């Protein structure tokens, strides 16, 4: 009996991808952006992060991707305690995560192809397989024919899809997106969220911050809601 519960416990542990325990974040300016946050996201889940503007969504994602360190509490991602991660290990940690940003963060002096290839290049991927991988990622977001274009010549929705291709080209186990459709109209937003849904269907854990409740209802996934830095609701809207 004890043995089985122990085994269950260890299985449960390996299934955990993100774990926040009593996490707070205070910016150097003194503003407390997150207060005493605790939650767990398991492997293969798709989770929405909701809340008003300024609620702390971006801050939470910055802690997950180690753009910021937590002030208090413990953040564990992919089995790694981020508070203890050595500085020079950070790049290797980030390669396990695909990141999508509201403002795309594309390099405008590079072509679409090179932008998507960048995560492979920085991780020393063999050039022989690079082309195939980049094309596969571009194909998935429907932009295979625009690989030579400069990002600036693409529409906002297309640029965001380039950003998504770049985020998944490394085949990360976790995809993190911060208001990826903030600047897009409803139709384009739906396409982007459907893409995330599809990646999740194929086994990628997805964590998306959005203040657009429509998508949460439409896709019927779990959501975490922040308000003024506190977790106010952990809801499962699974249909």
């Amino acid at each position: 009996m004890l043995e089985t519960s122990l085994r269950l416990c260890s299985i449960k542990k390996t299934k955990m991808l993100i774990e926040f325990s009593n996490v707070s974040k205070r910016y150097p300016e003194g503003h407390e952006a997150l207060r005493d946050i605790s939650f767990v996201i398991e492997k293969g889940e798709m989770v929405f992060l909701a809340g008003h503007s300024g609620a702390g969504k971006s801050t939470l994602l910055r802690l997950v991707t180690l753009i910021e360190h937590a002030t208090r509490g413990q953040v564990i991602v992919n089995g790694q305690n981020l508070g203890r991660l050595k500085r020079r290990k950070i790049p290797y940690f980030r390669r396990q995560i695909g990141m999508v940003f509201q403002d795309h963060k594309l390099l405008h002096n590079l072509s679409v192809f090179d932008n998507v290839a960048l995560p492979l290049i920085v991780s020393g991927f063999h050039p022989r397989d690079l082309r195939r991988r980049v094309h596969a990622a571009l194909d998935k977001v429907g932009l295979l024919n625009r690989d030579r274009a400069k990002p600036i010549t693409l529409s906002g929705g297309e640029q965001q899809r380039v950003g998504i291709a770049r985020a998944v080209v490394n085949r990360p186990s976790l995809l993190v997106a911060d208001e990826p459709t903030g600047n897009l109209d409803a139709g384009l937003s739906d396409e982007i969220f459907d893409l995330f849904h599809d990646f999740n269907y194929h086994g990628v854990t997805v964590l998306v911050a959005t203040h657009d409740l429509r998508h949460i209802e439409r896709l019927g996934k779990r959501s975490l809601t922040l308000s003024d830095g506190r977790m106010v609701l952990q809801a499962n809207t699974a249909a």
Partner: protein
Amino acid sequence: MLVWLTRHLQTLVGALGDLSRSPFSSILSISVIAIALALPGGLFAALENINKFTSEFEHGAKISLFLAPQVSVKQATELQQSIQQHASIKLVELITPDQAMEEFKSRSGLQNALNSLTSNPLPVVLLAYPKDEIARSAEKLARLIDELGKLKQVELSQFDLEWIKRLTALLELVTRAVWIIAFILGLGVFLVIGNTIRLAITNRQEEIRIIKLIGGTDAFVRRSFLYSGMLQGLLGGLLALLIIFLLFSFISAPTSSLSSMYGIAFSLDPLHFLPSLLLVSSGALIGWLSARVTVGVYLRQFEPGK
């Protein structure tokens, strides 16, 4: 290996591209670097030429060894042969008392007075010509004169070109001064390149941030800046060589005609291959080091916030 090589080549080409993207400021900073490198480089080349010029005299540098009166010509010949074996000696000539007397008579105008002497009071004299590398160093020369003077058959050893010794000592001082200038200007080059790298980092802040977000290591980010710093130093060094070469060819013709008026066959040498290589590679090395330090300092701002 091939992957590694192509990646470095790509970065190098990329760094070239960066330089050509802002041609005006690149040319400006490369020119400043070139001038800073050309000054000590040119001074070293000038020193080389002065050394070459004085060594024209040093070829004639000789140590006169006046032997003790009881030493016979036969013993002196043996001594001549043994000194000839000395590692620092090029050639030893022997002047017998008779030869010396003849010369003395013809030169001094005391012919009649000397003719009345019944015996020849002059000793045997050995003229020892040191090898060039010895003659060039005041210290080694002094040691050699001292060593030869200590031989028991030698009563007095004397070196004629005292002023060469002084000049050599002065040149040593000047050489050190030029090293100090070289060091200070090298530091200047370091700072100039550091500043362009700092500007480049500021201009490419967003790019660096993105590269770090998608898992680029510090080494990856650093690489293109290291190449850019190295390239600036390298191009500055090449331009410095060109400046030195032009300056030298500008004053080469008057120098030759001036020295030919004094009956000396002397022509200016520009920097030789090895010093040229040294100049260019120290430019590249300073550039690399400067970029390394600057990037090290400025990459800290991209660390996770506490």
